[in-house]
């Protein structure tokens, strides 16, 4: 694919998703280019998390198309392994493997899924531990780490798979206020290095600082979107205005 650089890395078109009778996404479209940082904000239950969970096929969709580097996600014969090699994910509750140490958590997927050499993987994992500033915590179990530390291990675990894009699903929502910043700092560094990031977040100041583009969702549709300065200072839609007035 020679046009890789020009085409959007993730292209979402008219996506519909229902849980039973409840339609959560009612025709959502967005394009995310390589190296971009996208923040999706909106009230609870507006479908933000559902949307990003569709990108790596943790949720299936009923209608529409999601292309990740040209690979169609809404395809019954989808090669999930191929997709998930490209798309990393970090969760609200960290979801580390509690029976593995921090280092083992990071090493597991490259060894088991990518069948990489254990020695090389360990080198990479140690470098990643350093990158997320957790030196000395390699041999600690998740239960011995604080929320913020666990979340940074989770980010390193995702990075170990060398993904092209990472999904962040309200990754600071479960953290103590004082540890939120250490995680945000790690994400910010990733963004500055050019990692494509799609974040669902309630951290408005962070979104304003880091995002290239902000999407506001409500009741399953994208109400408004734009670059942070325009979005925060010149919101047009009354729903966006109301939401921002409550949260800022």
């Amino acid at each position: 694919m020679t046009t890789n650089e020009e085409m959007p890395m993730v292209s979402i078109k008219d996506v519909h998703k229902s849980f039973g009778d409840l339609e959560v996404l009612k025709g959502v479209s967005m394009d995310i280019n390589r190296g971009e940082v996208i923040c999706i904000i909106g009230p609870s239950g507006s479908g933000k998390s559902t949307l990003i969970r569709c990108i790596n096929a943790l949720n299936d969709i009923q209608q529409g198309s999601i292309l990740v580097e040209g690979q169609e996600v809404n395809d019954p014969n989808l090669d999930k392994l191929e997709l998930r090699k490209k798309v990393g994910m970090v969760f609200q509750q960290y979801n580390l493997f509690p029976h593995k140490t921090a280092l083992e958590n990071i090493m597991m997927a490259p060894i088991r899924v990518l069948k990489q050499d254990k020695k090389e993987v360990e080198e990479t994992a140690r470098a990643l531990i350093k990158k997320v500033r957790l030196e000395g915590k390699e041999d600690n179990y998740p239960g011995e780490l604080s929320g913020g530390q666990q979340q940074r291990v989770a980010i390193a675990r995702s990075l170990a798979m060398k993904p092209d894009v990472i999904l962040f699903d309200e990754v600071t929502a479960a953290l103590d206020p004082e540890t939120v910043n250490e995680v945000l700092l790690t994400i910010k560094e990733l963004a500055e290095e050019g990692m494509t990031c799609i974040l669902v977040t309630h951290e408005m100041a962070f979104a304003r600082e880091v995002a290239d583009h902000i999407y506001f969702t409500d009741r399953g549709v994208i109400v408004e979107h734009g670059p942070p300065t325009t979005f925060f200072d010149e919101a047009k839609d009354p729903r966006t205005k109301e939401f921002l007035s409550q949260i800022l």
Partner: protein
Amino acid sequence: MDSFYEWFKILYDDTGINLPFLYDSYDRGRMFDGFLMTIKLSLLCLFFSVIIGMIGAWLQNSPLKWTRRFVGGYIQIFRNTPPLVQLYFFYFAVGALLPKIDNGYGGEMPLLGGFAWAVISLSFFAGAFNVEIFRSGIEAVPKSTVEAAEALGFSRLQIYKDITLPLAFRVMLPALNNNLVNLVKTTTLAYAIAVPEMLYEANQIWSDNVNVTEMMIFMLLAYFFLVGILVWGMNRWERAMKIPGYG
């Protein structure tokens, strides 16, 4: 050692407390063989029943309705009938239906002997409980942890092997230990189809020596210590499996 054995002979002569499995070399051999047989039977049944539990719990999560029903039916049959009846069923009913084979002396003998049937029957009996125990452990593993593995590209089998089972194991160990202790005690039922395990050999000895009281006391103590060792080992294992900050 000989004087140690001799002492029990004197004990018998002086007090009438008859422990021939200590002073008589023939009875000693019988008792020891019975002990080994009990160990062999227990280990094989422990092994197979755990395997059955693991596979059964995996099949219970199958997307195929009939696979799940089959496992459910198996559990109901083996949980709701007495193990002795199951043992007789396998040995006398199933055993009679199987073809006979040549015994090397021109006669015929059954395809499977009492020992093999005891292993099969008791493994399925304990296995039925193990399936339920494994299932409870698997259900205790948070769905979000499994999802994290999915998002990293793990396959269903890899998730079961690397994530679900190791975590489920820690949750279900106390229940599993209970069932395995029960299984070891249930091996005495093999006595009923003449498998020469410890209780069977003890019966042989008391028939020959008319020392029922002594043998019964000895049996109780022997099983108490045998199962005690198992429980001790299991408890150590439980402690070794503990992970900081989990469970």
